[in-house]
């Protein structure tokens, strides 16, 4: 995860469900900490500036998809329907890196480590255990 965020390359994450689940949580943490109390129209402006900085097309489908994914993390669940997984992952990696670097100072490693640890704790708290919920397990005799 840290390598993917630092290098903005999804290769290190691969296609396994657990790392992708963790990336979704990292994305949700980064987006919520930056945008929760802001007017959603500021997200349109943020995405435009991000794409311009990256010299990417800022007036088309990429911009709409990035805004939709960010607003989905803030609760508008249906907005991102139909965006392919590869595009979602690419957008999440770029946005997480950008938001983390904009919001704090310090080396990339420190920033991303803190963010990923936060997300890991949330995943551990809210995702069901693979072998059933603790209160449903049989007690050992």
């Amino acid at each position, binding site marked *: 995860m840290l390598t993917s965020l630092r290098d903005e390359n999804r290769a290190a994450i691969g296609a396994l469900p657990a790392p992708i689940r963790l990336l979704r949580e990292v994305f949700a943490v980064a987006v919520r900490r930056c945008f929760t109390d802001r007017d959603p129209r500021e997200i*349109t402006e943020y995405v435009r500036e991000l794409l311009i900085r990256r010299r990417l097309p800022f*007036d*088309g*489908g990429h*911009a709409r998809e990035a805004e939709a994914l960010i607003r989905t993390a803030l609760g*508008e669940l249906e*907005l991102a*329907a139909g965006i392919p997984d590869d595009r979602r992952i690419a957008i999440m990696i770029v946005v997480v890196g950008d938001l983390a670097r904009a919001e704090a100072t310090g080396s990339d490693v420190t920033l991303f480590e803190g963010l990923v640890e936060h997300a890991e704790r949330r995943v551990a708290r809210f995702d069901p255990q693979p072998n059933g919920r603790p209160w449903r397990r049989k007690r050992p005799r």
Partner: protein
Amino acid sequence: MMATHRADAPGGRHPATPGGRYLRATAINDRADEPHGDAVRDVCSRAFASVVQLRFRPDTPLLAIACSVRAAAHRHPALAVRVREAEMLIREALGEQVPTGGITPDQAVAVHVLLFASLVDELALTDDELDELIADAEAV
């Protein structure tokens, strides 16, 4: 606040173009063959902008706009409304600078017609008011 019914509703003006008649038929849930051409697109686009400006203000919360788009999509599940594009077209009609690149003319006119019908329903316009709205879009 809009009166429940306008006493001075003028009446008498009716859609006079293929695009206008198609918009009216869609809004009152009547059958009509879909016309084509630039003139049709222009009428649909202007009527869409008018109804959007009646329904929303430039500072309307995005959640309210997204809610209307979602309602239109749920009313017509078979038409697979493109919700991201629809929201951007509404916001563009309200004067916002938003990413609308890559939306084809056919996709745009589909959104214009469907959202026009849905927003007319949300506003509970009378038939006379609907005709006025369309006739104004045709007259430009």
